[in-house]
């Protein structure tokens, strides 16, 4: 339980206070209820007590056990509210960072093309995270800071915090987003402001040349959900450097070797189950005949040819 009481942001104290009040109340009641049950089972067991009393109600007791829990839950509500309300009041001087969630990684955009995979923030500085989704719902969760907010396409969600201790903490995605949901993690690294400034100055500007139109089409049609660009095996084979290579495919239940040429790539898009790369399952990919125009497919082929499917 040590992690619970070592909040690393200004918001943790309010949240933890609500936790402690609810758990303390729960603990006292649970002990009381269990003790009463044990007492009843021993004292009023049929072996000992052959003459059950026949009372069937008591208005005074009913009022007590309606009013006392009501007061307690109103206090709980109050603690929950005051712990939460500062989370929605972002200080005007907060530094703004854009968090981009996409299947299945986080990118933290510091502006001016400076993008980092981990979230580096200066100690004791207010930070506002603007949450942006590139595809489906995600959720940015930093347990040590007690903050979480969903990252939803089309929504301008946000959260903020002020880190109060240095260190490295977990970031999780907590809205189910598909195959590698549990791999969509990152780190928050809290450093002092001098160190932060140096780190930011050294952060390389992401290569921002115009994207190959073929790659843009690949991204827009969510091909990368199943096919990686970096050689990783996901649901389908990776697209990295495939053009011109020899591929072992299964055609009508027989294995054969083909070369990944224009024809092969087009066939894989239009009739994906005709030649299935060995080791992968048939039937998972649908034809893109209705979705992609012929010129789009040409652009994709050109992307593989020229960029080689490498980043």
């Amino acid at each position, binding site marked *: 339980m040590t992690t619970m009481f070592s909040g690393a942001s200004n918001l943790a104290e309010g*949240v933890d206070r609500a936790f402690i009040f609810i758990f303390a109340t729960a603990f006292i009641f649970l002990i009381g209820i269990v003790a009463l049950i044990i007492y009843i*089972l021993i004292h009023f067991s049929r072996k000992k007590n052959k003459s059950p009393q*026949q009372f069937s*109600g008591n208005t005074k007791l009913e009022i007590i056990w*309606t009013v006392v829990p009501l007061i307690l*839950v109103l206090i709980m509500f109050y603690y*929950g509210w005051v712990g939460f309300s500062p989370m929605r009041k972002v200080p005007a001087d907060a530094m703004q960072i854009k968090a981009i969630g996409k299947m299945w990684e986080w990118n933290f955009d510091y502006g001016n093309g400076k993008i980092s995979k981990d979230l580096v923030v200066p100690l004791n500085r207010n930070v506002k995270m603007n949450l942006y989704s590139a595809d489906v719902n995600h959720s940015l969760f930093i347990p040590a800071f007690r903050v979480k907010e*969903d990252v939803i396409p089309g929504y301008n969600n946000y959260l903020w915090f002020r880190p109060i201790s240095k260190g490295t903490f977990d970031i999780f995605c907590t809205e189910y987003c598909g195959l590698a949901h549990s791999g969509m993690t990152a780190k928050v690294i809290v450093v002092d402001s001098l160190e932060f400034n140096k780190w930011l100055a050294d952060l390389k500007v992401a290569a921002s040349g115009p994207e190959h139109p073929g790659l843009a089409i690949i991204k827009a049609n969510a091909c990368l959900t199943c096919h990686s660009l970096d050689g990783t095996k996901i649901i389908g084979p990776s697209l990295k450097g495939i053009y011109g290579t020899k591929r072992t495919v299964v055609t009508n239940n027989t294995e054969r070797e083909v070369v990944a040429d224009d024809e092969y790539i087009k066939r894989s898009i239009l009739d994906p189950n005709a030649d299935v790369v060995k080791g992968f399952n048939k039937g998972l990919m649908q034809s893109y005949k209705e979705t992609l125009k012929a010129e789009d497919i040409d652009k994709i082929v050109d992307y593989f040819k020229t960029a080689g499917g490498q980043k």
Partner: protein
Amino acid sequence: MNNPSPTAPLNFLNHKTGLWSWLSSTDHKRIGLLYLYAITTFFLSAAVLGLLMKIEKVAPGETIMTAQTYNAMFTLHGIIMIFIVVIPGLAAVFGNIMLPIMIGAKDVAFPKLNLFSFYVYITGACLGLYSQFAHGHSPDTGWTFYVPYSAEASSNVVIALTAAFTLGFASILTGLNFIVTIHRMRAPGMTWFRMPLFPWSLYATAWIQLLATPVVGITLLMVIAERTLHIGFFDPALGGDPVLYQHLFWIYSHPAVYVMILPAMGVVTEIFPTFSQKPVFGYLPIVFSSLAIALVGYFVWGHHMFTSGMSYESRWFFSFLTFLVAIPSAIKVFNWLSTMYGGSVDLQPPLLYAISFIFLFTIGGFTGLTLGSVATDIQVHNTDFVVAHFHYIIFGGMGFGFFAGMHYWYPKIYGRMYNIRWANIGWGILFTGFNLLYFPMFIMGIQGMPRRYFDYDPKFQLGQTISTIGAIILFTGLITMISNLIYHVRRGAIAPANPWHGVTLEWQIPSPPPHENFDEIPVITRDPYVFDNPYTK
């Protein structure tokens, strides 16, 4: 329990024989048993999926299955358990078998509609399974089908919603049937407040089924309109709002939680007086708390969405309403304890399950308050804490309530008795396994372990391993309990008509009940829980 029971008179189990006589029966008791067998089958298959998931998580990284398989398993586990097992569950099984008998009727108001609802249910269950395998696409959306992920996955969200609606339709028809039965068919002299409390809980449940389920239908129509006419309701690419989907989903699915738990509360409310030989404490407060839960339960769905980007005002307002719904549950717990207090308490298996219900439901309830408070929900939302909480409520509450009812009414339904010792042993294993499985998930959740995670940080290893061991123990307990019950259906000792010395109407007729329950409709002249000649005297 050694009274020789007359075996000669025909009862509902043997007055007609053959498979067809069961599949076409409009007898409420036979329909209840059809539901029981269907639900048990689905329950065990989904429980196996749960066990496999826990074995996968015994250590970080891949152990026995891939991430894709894991995601498919938690989706199927959720869909089967929620829509096919738990929502119909108690009302369809014990509601059907016991409601007409407990109010002194020969059947429900619309017996043919009742049989029809069963087949609608089976159709919905098949559609639900089909939705997950249609288009050769394995299921991986989670049981909540959140857009836009579910929309991109393939078109199976339409079939899945159709399944939810079909199952919901069976639920509406059962609810309607029960409401009319309770209004119109109570025995002469049984005024509203002479009605036993299990029928009262079914009455409150039936109104939720009737009023909340149509929302699924609306959602389905909107999804279909979006797909075919490209009207942007939910899909951001068409200008729609993904959060609107979450609202509509939870407007139905939150009240559905009370459809699950209210009948279980009704079952244990029958068990406490019988095994204490003492009237229910606070009959009216229990009735009104059931109605209050049904009413307030409609207005708390937003607590599933505290992190969705809802406005500040709606977050604290839904939090406030959520805390109010805790009060009627607390009132029930205190009344149950007071029912036993001063009684002559006989700790038989049904009472053992009913007492565990109180314990597990209280833990589930208090952790529910943690989720209702906005500040703490922000931390534990969508973590293992939530998974632990709803398994304490649904499995510890509805599940243990169901097991309590099964052990309570078993001798009435089958006219035979299970082995008490094995029932107690099964309970012990189940209860131990349950707490080992789910309690560590509270702690891991607070520490930040997200739910629906195939893989996890090694710092969670200890909790995950304990949880896996708990799952294996729990499953052993389930098998022990169910084997004992199945084995004694034919081989158990003959049970007398009233083995527990209950006072409600079902205990006044033979076991198993005759085809039409009563030769002569009883006339009710007094309150339901009068023990004027307790067994112990």
